[in-house]
């Protein structure tokens, strides 16, 4: 200790200096922190804090928010699933309703129809010609009711059987040829040219429901025949322009030289039971279901259907993916 005596004042000074440094550093740091915390935005939930304890708190907050969002999504999922179940039940109830109603209609309809027919045929006693005209009108109305009920059943069956599609490989050319053969007679009775234009090379097989596809072609070609005046032409064309598209599809066109579709009717043409005035005028019998069904079937295969129309006639076009893009 005596050795250090002359340096005592120097050591004291050094210690004091060091102490001063430490204290001022601590004070300064505190001062900085105060500034930083005051100046940084604290409006957000996840305000960034320099202090690590606050970081942990914000992470906790983040986690809570995430958990809340997940719970809300799960709740939405349950809601949707319940809504779906309700829709399925509604669909079932609707089918049952249609089946039961038509079932209950069958006996009274048959009774009216049989009676009216016997009356008009003179099988229930003599009937004056004037009486006969009234009876025949009534009979016509009965026929109309039967037709409507039959069509309602068809539509309902198709809608209910949407899970009843059977997809198998189909040669489109064969189906078209078969439908054209089936509709030859009505075309000939109007002196119409019914032409099929396949491609030079057969199209690849399409995976489709052949019965439903046949219905589409029947509806389109039958419409073309119905609404084209005598000596016109109905042409069915196959097109391979979309074989390299996504999805790879075949294209079918049904073109007629008929009445055409008025712009005012264009938006309604695929609606259930819709029949344009000009169509009704030309062909009083018709349910207005053909295009509705065709659209439903094509879309169920993942294809699209549209038309172009003018004064020279109408062309209906539909695409059919080679492999169904099932909705």
């Amino acid at each position, binding site marked *: 200790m005596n050795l250090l005596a002359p340096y005592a004042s120097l050591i004291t000074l050094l210690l004091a200096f060091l102490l001063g440094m430490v204290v001022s550093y601590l004070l300064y740091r505190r001062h900085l922190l105060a500034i930083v915390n005051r100046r940084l935005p604290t409006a957000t939930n996840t305000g960034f804090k320099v202090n690590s304890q606050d970081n942990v708190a914000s992470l906790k907050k983040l986690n809570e928010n995430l958990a809340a969002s997940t719970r809300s999504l799960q709740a939405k999922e349950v809601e949707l699933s319940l809504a779906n179940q309700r829709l399925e039940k509604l669909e079932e109830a609707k089918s049952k309703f249609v089946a039961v109603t038509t079932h209950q209609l069958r006996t009274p309809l048959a009774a009216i*129809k*049989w009676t009216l027919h016997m009356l008009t045929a003179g099988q229930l006693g003599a009937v004056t010609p004037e009486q006969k005209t009234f009876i025949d009108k009534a009979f016509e109305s009965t026929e109309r009711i039967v037709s409507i009920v039959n069509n309602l059943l068809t539509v309902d069956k198709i809608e209910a059987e949407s899970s009843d599609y059977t997809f198998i490989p189909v040669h489109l050319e064969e189906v078209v040829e078969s439908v054209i053969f089936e509709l030859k007679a009505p075309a000939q009775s109007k002196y119409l040219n019914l032409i099929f234009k396949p491609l030079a090379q057969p199209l690849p097989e399409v995976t489709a429901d052949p019965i439903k596809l046949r219905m589409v072609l029947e509806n389109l070609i039958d419409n073309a025949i119905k609404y084209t005046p005598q000596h016109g032409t109905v042409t069915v064309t196959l097109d391979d322009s979309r074989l390299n598209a996504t999805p790879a599809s075949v294209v079918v066109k049904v073109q007629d030289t008929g009445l055409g579709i008025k712009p005012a009717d264009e938006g309604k043409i695929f609606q259930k039971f819709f029949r344009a005035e000009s169509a009704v005028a030309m062909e009083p019998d018709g349910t207005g279901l053909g295009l509705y069904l065709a659209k439903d079937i094509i879309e169920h295969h993942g294809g699209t259907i549209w038309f172009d129309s003018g004064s020279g006639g109408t062309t209906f076009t539909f695409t059919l993916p080679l492999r169904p893009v099932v909705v």
Partner: protein
Amino acid sequence: MKKVLIVEDDEFLRSLAAKRLEQEGYEVKTAAGGEAGITAIKSDKPDLILLDLLLPGGKDGFAVLEAVRADEATKSLPVVVFSNLGERGDIEKASKLGATDFLVKANFTLDDVMAKVAAHLK
């Protein structure tokens, strides 16, 4: 004179069909239910049966059809089945059970029915 048995539960339809058949010169027997129908087939021995599929009581049209085909005596008896609007499964089922022909009642007049009866009695 050929004998036709009508198995139909609706009284009015039954009477209309009977009247028309008689006008065409057939002898007509009727039954209002399945059980009565099966009995009538055995006792009246008709030449043809007009059979409604929907019948009250325990035995429906399908049951009658089965009974008819199970009996040696009536195995090949012509049976014209009345099916109902929209019940396409009925036609398949009736066909499998051996029905000779089908008619949706509301789709045809009695003259159409007469034509079928005449055709199947040839």
